[in-house]
């Protein structure tokens, strides 16, 4: 493949976004959706070509395309240039591949006549998002990555607030944007510090950066230095915003206000994984700071657990999936935090498959039930929606880690490598503290919780008896408003919607083939992704205690046993004997735990009281009432008032309206100037 073709990959979606925006209302749903899908598919073709080229090239090969020099100041040169190494190529395929499927699905999903005038906007944003995401992952320097980083945030904001006439949805968009800005601020400060630390050798290109830092780690304070730790923690701060980790995860559940394909594409499969991508890209830097790695792993594990506890009690199907996404992102950070970069990234890929499927399936259900998102009004949907339901089973088995499914391999690898991580490499509390074992326990408990809440979701919506529809007269009325002339029962969705589900279902089932563990006798196929990505992480050497020993299988069996028990409990409570649910809850779960989980542990309220409230009060009482209204307005009004007094008092005398007086002044002025010249020379 000619490396210059690389720049076509982001060019197609940009072209699509511009074309659709220019056509605007003239582009119907099918035209806009068709253009958008075609553009992303073309990108996908070139992405897979890139991947194939790199996979068959010798180890360590990369492709790069330089368009032009963007900024040149002193020694610093920033190009608009793209770089494809194995990490980039894999991510490109995930983004454009899953993206193309979701585009197809969206053509079917966005068929509400109320949106007919604005579907072009939806597809233009979607294409713009793919463009920004590709800039983020393909940029060969920090600055271009940051442009993409901000671009995806903006598209996310636009799409969450797509139905902006609903004030709550518009607010959710703002919340996402502001939470992300907090993270971006930290990211920028980290970037500035890194740039400043490198001094004469400062560069923004990833390849040069890696060379400079690997050649002389002393520039950033050496291994374990305070400077590199600060830089890594600040960059990770950016990742907590974009990838929804503690403390900035609060925006992601609210982001479900956007149309469901957006939740699938941006808030599950692609954008939210960019934090993990960034850490993988800078693995050579992060590996220098055991403290930062420890923080990443700990925050990841805690987020995974914390979000899972909330997901257990939510009743909105999309909210469960949103907290599940936060939780799974936590797993990925746990993976990269303990130094298992390829395992963490593998989970990015498998998660993109099954979580996109879970969201799209939920979207199909919501579409079939006419915007019903409450799982308590679902049930028995497998009978009515055989394809969607069947695919949902695959995604469910993948996320709970059923043996053989994609999620099983990726989650298992993360847990195993966490267990066997070298404590010195994640020395958050000193090298002797058994942090890896504790993190593994949190991870394993989270796996059990995941199995419980996902089984609860599946049993409540797809099994048992249908609890919505007939009895619900209101739902029926809403039904007619939409002008669909269906019967009372839910129905299967159109092929445009279920075809992507089938593809994603197969990927969720077979995604594990990308990176089979060593105990599977698969010859060359074993650990393909791991070997493919090896050159990228070559400068971040991480060691795992006893990773070669066969502890993996006992650990796996132990987790698996707990997962199955958890599914069984869920089955008993939600399907076998739902009438016992209330009493079981009464007896087994303390009230504060249940209410805490149901109310998301009051984190939003806490932030409101501790941060947002004081800022609002300060802004209103001090910045607005005193600084703005009195100080700034006072200065402006004072200057204006002074001028008015001068003009009405003195300058009126000379503005008497007599042209000849004006001419006299002019002539006198000219005479004075001529005299001045004459005397001066």
């Amino acid at each position, binding site marked *: 493949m000619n490396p210059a073709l690389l720049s076509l990959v982001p060019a197609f979606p940009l072209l699509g976004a511009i074309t659709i925006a220019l056509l605007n209302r003239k582009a119907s749903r099918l035209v806009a959706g068709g253009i958008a899908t075609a553009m992303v598919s073309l990108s996908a073709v070139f992405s897979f070509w890139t991947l194939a080229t790199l996979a068959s090239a010798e180890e360590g090969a990369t492709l790069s395309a330089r368009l032009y020099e963007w900024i040149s100041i002193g020694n610093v040169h920033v190009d608009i240039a793209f770089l494809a190494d194995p990490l980039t190529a894999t991510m490109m395929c995930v983004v454009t591949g899953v993206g193309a499927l979701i585009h197809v699905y969206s053509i079917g999903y966005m068929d509400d006549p109320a949106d007919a005038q604005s579907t072009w906007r939806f597809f233009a944003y979607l294409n713009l998002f793919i463009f920004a995401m590709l800039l983020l992952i393909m940029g060969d320097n920090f600055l271009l990555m940051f442009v993409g980083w901000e671009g995806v945030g903006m598209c996310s904001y636009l799409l969450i607030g797509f139905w902006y006439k609903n004030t709550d949805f518009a607010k959710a968009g703002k919340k996402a944007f502001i939470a992300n800005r907090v993270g971006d601020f930290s990211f920028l400060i980290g970037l500035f510090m890194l740039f400043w630390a490198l001094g004469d050798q400062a560069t923004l290109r990833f390849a040069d950066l890696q060379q400079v830092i690997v050649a002389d780690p002393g520039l950033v304070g050496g291994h374990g230095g305070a400077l590199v730790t600060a830089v890594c923690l600040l960059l990770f701060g950016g990742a907590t915003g974009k990838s929804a980790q503690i403390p900035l995860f609060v925006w992601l559940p609210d982001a479900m206000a956007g149309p469901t394909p957006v939740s699938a594409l941006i808030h599950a499969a692609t954008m939210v994984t960019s934090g993990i991508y960034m850490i993988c890209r800078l693995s050579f830097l992060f590996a220098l700071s055991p403290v930062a790695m420890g923080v990443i792993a700990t925050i990841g594990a805690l987020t995974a657990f914390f979000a899972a506890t909330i997901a257990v009690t939510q009743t909105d199907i999309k909210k469960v999936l949103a907290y599940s996404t936060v939780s799974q992102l936590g797993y990925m950070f746990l993976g990269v935090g303990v130094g298992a970069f390829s395992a963490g990234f593998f989970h990015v890929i498998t998660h993109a498959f099954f979580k996109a499927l879970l969201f799209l399936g939920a979207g199909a259900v919501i579409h079939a039930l006419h915007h019903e998102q409450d799982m308590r009004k679902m049930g028995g949907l497998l009978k009515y929606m055989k394809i969607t339901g069947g695919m949902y089973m695959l995604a469910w088995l993948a996320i709970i880690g059923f043996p053989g499914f994609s999620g099983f391999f990726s989650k298992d690898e993360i847990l195993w490598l966490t267990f066997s991580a070298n404590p010195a490499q994640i020395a958050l509390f000193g090298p002797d503290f058994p942090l890896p074992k504790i993190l593994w326990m949190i991870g394993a408990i989270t796996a059990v919780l995941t199995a419980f809440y996902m089984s609860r979701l599946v049993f409540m919506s797809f099994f048992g008896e249908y609890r919505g529809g007939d009895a619900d007269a209101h739902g029926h009325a809403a039904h007619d408003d939409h002008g669909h002339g269906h019967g009372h029962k839910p129905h299967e969705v159109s092929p445009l919607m279920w075809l992507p589900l089938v593809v994603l279902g197969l990927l969720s089932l077979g995604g594990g083939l990308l990176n089979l563990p060593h105990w599977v006798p698969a010859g060359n196929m074993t650990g393909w992704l791991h070997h493919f990505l090896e050159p990228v992480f070559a400068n971040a050497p991480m060691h795992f205690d006893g990773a070669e020993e066969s502890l993996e299988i006992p650990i796996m069996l132990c987790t698996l046993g707990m997962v199955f028990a958890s599914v069984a409990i869920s089955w008993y409570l939600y399907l076998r004997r739902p009438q016992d649910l209330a009493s079981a809850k009464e007896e087994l779960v303390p009230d504060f735990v249940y209410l805490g989980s149901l109310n998301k542990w009051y984190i939003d309220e806490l932030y409101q009281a501790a941060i947002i409230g004081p800022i609002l009060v300060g802004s209103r009482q001090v910045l607005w009432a005193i600084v703005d209204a009195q100080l700034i307005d006072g200065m402006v009004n004072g200057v204006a008032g002074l001028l008015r007094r001068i003009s009405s008092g003195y*300058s009126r005398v000379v*503005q008497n*309206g*007599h042209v*000849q007086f004006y*001419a*006299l002044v002019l002539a006198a002025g000219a005479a004075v100037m001529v005299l001045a010249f004459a005397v001066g020379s």
Partner: protein
Amino acid sequence: MEQVGLYPVLVTSAVIFTLGAVGVLTRRNALIVLMSIELMLNAVNLAFVGFSRHHGLPDGQVFAVFVMAVAAAEAAVGLALVLLLFRHKASVDLDHFTMLKG
């Protein structure tokens, strides 16, 4: 024929210019003011031509032609304005037109 030097030309030009300027500043009749402006412009033309001849360069004469063209346009606009002013107040006395006072 005897050549006229630069100084007589400039002195003549300065005298005419001053006459024009005094006319502009002192006369009340708008028509006379316009005529005085013409005097000033032509005084400048005279200086242009004088310098042009003195230096042996054609630039000054070119400028003089431009000034004439502009002066013609200015006279046309000026007379039209005076006409309108007259229609407005039946007078061309500039002291009657002080509507622009602050």
